[in-house]
């Protein structure tokens, strides 16, 4: 059953997985393209830092797209086919989730190999070191987390999505209203801070995504 579901999931997700793998494989080479042997550590760090915000964004985007592709056919068919399958529902969910994670392994592996190859060909100044596997691991974790979050949101009813969206809009509205009377406050900013700084749930995305570091 799992293999059958995986095959259908692959058909739905391959237009995201394959291009994603190609793009992710290109990123480390593009990033390190300008690094030469004449550069001092600070310059190399400047290049790496300029690219590092891209990685959490790519991880989140990949997770979102794969989650969308995973649930889109079921949503179109109002989950009728899925719910008529001879498998317990919780198992079905696990199979879908596991399939998504497995398929995400393809672009992640491509990224890891590309990062490793790119640093082999790059002259890294003394005092700095390359972390291709650590970065790949972080990327894998970030992509999986994003996939899980969007998997959960997208599996819900439109009402669930509306509630989530409504909460976000309400936070933004409260932020605006509060600022009128207390200009120093920043509710949205503070909430983002809580989410993105440790031990917040999304702290992983705000951390260090440096392929080359001290």
């Amino acid at each position, binding site marked *: 059953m799992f293999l059958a579901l995986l095959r259908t999931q692959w058909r739905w997700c391959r237009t995201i997985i394959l291009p994603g793998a190609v793009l992710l494989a290109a990123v480390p080479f593009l990033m390190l393209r300008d690094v030469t042997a004449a550069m001092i550590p600070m310059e190399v760090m400047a290049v790496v830092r300029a690219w590092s915000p891209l990685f959490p964004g790519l991880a989140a985007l990949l997770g979102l797209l794969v989650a969308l592709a995973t649930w889109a056919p079921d949503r179109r068919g*109002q989950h009728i086919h899925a719910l008529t399958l001879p498998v317990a529902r919780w198992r079905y969910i696990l199979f879908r989730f596991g399939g998504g994670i497995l398929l995400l392994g393809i672009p992640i592996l491509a990224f890891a190999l590309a990062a490793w190859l790119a640093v082999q060909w790059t002259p890294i100044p003394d005092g700095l070191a390359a972390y291709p596997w650590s970065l790949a691991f972080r990327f894998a974790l970030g992509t999986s987390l994003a996939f899980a979050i969007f998997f959960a949101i997208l599996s819900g009813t*439109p*009402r669930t999505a509306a509630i989530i969206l409504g909460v976000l809009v309400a936070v933004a509205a409260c932020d605006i209203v509060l*600022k*009128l009377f207390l*200009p120093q406050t920043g509710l949205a900013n503070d909430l983002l801070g809580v989410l993105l700084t440790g031990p917040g749930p999304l702290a992983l995305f705000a951390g260090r995504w440096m392929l080359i570091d001290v």
Partner: protein
Amino acid sequence: MSSWRLVAALLLVAGRSAAAQGSSPLAEEIARLERRVDSMRVEQRHATALVAAAGTVVAPARSVATLDLIRVGGFQIRANRSPLPVTAAAEEAWRQLGGYFGDELAQLPLRPILVEGTHPDSNGGSLEEKADLVIRWDQSVGSLVAQLIGAAGPDPLDADLEQWLGGRPRPGSGTVAALAKARDQLVLAPFSTGHDCVAGDLIACRGALRLGPADGWAAQSFPEPGDRRQVALLVGRTRSGALAAGVERCLGARDDESCSAVVRAVDISALPSVADQATRRTLLDAALRRGGAGAYHRLRATPSPAMEVRLAAAAGVPIDTLLADWRVEMVQAVRTVTPWSTKIGVAGIGWLVVFLACALWSSRWRAD
């Protein structure tokens, strides 16, 4: 030469050599450097004369660009040829100075300065220490105006005013943003006089802004027991000895007598300020605007240890009137800086409706 003269000459020479041997190495080094400096000065005169004769300009370091003299109002600016809008900025700066100092500007000469415009990608100019301002030429006129005023602006030599302001008086603090910031600063200050001033208590404003004579600042700025405790908390961090004991009693036992004693014991200059320098500048700006062209002259011509007397003289109105108007301006400035308009409200509601419609457009809710 007779024999005694010869002996005297020999003794003189012997004495000198003995003195030379007895002088310290440091003194000898100083003498050597003095001789070197003297000979280098002679060489410098020769070199400068040669350069003048050859008609070339002495380059202090790398080659020096041609400098143009820009005269705008009282500004005398030498600037290199670059896209930097020096003339436009000088015109605007002169206009601002005229509006600020009024008729008194004629008595306050500006310092001639040298401005060098540099390429935005470069790390420095070629004139090195000679240039008063080294500015990247991608900067805006507004930023350049502030720098010109800062570098060449008049120095009225008014020690009391400068001490109250924390620097030379200069225009730029009458803007809406500055007033809004002043209001925020007073509201967020940890002292009651700040909040009360914004709320409308003019006596609190006098205390917060230190408008009275210096010997009354402590009592006027910190009238409440909570204020004095806060002062003790702030100054107590860096103190030791007898003062530390007083701070301990003030904060631990919440004894107001001890808190008051701490406030009295601290130097005036070490007391925390309720209103910061930027806030005080906005009041001065308000007084000068109110008083017109002769305001600054009256401010200078009024000798008084209390700023309130001088500001009232500058504005030409009683200090309470000035403070009341200034307070209203501050409150209005906040509303201007953070505007709430019907457009934004309608847009926000509109988006809500759009998202709700998206959410409801679902097969789950439709009957078919």
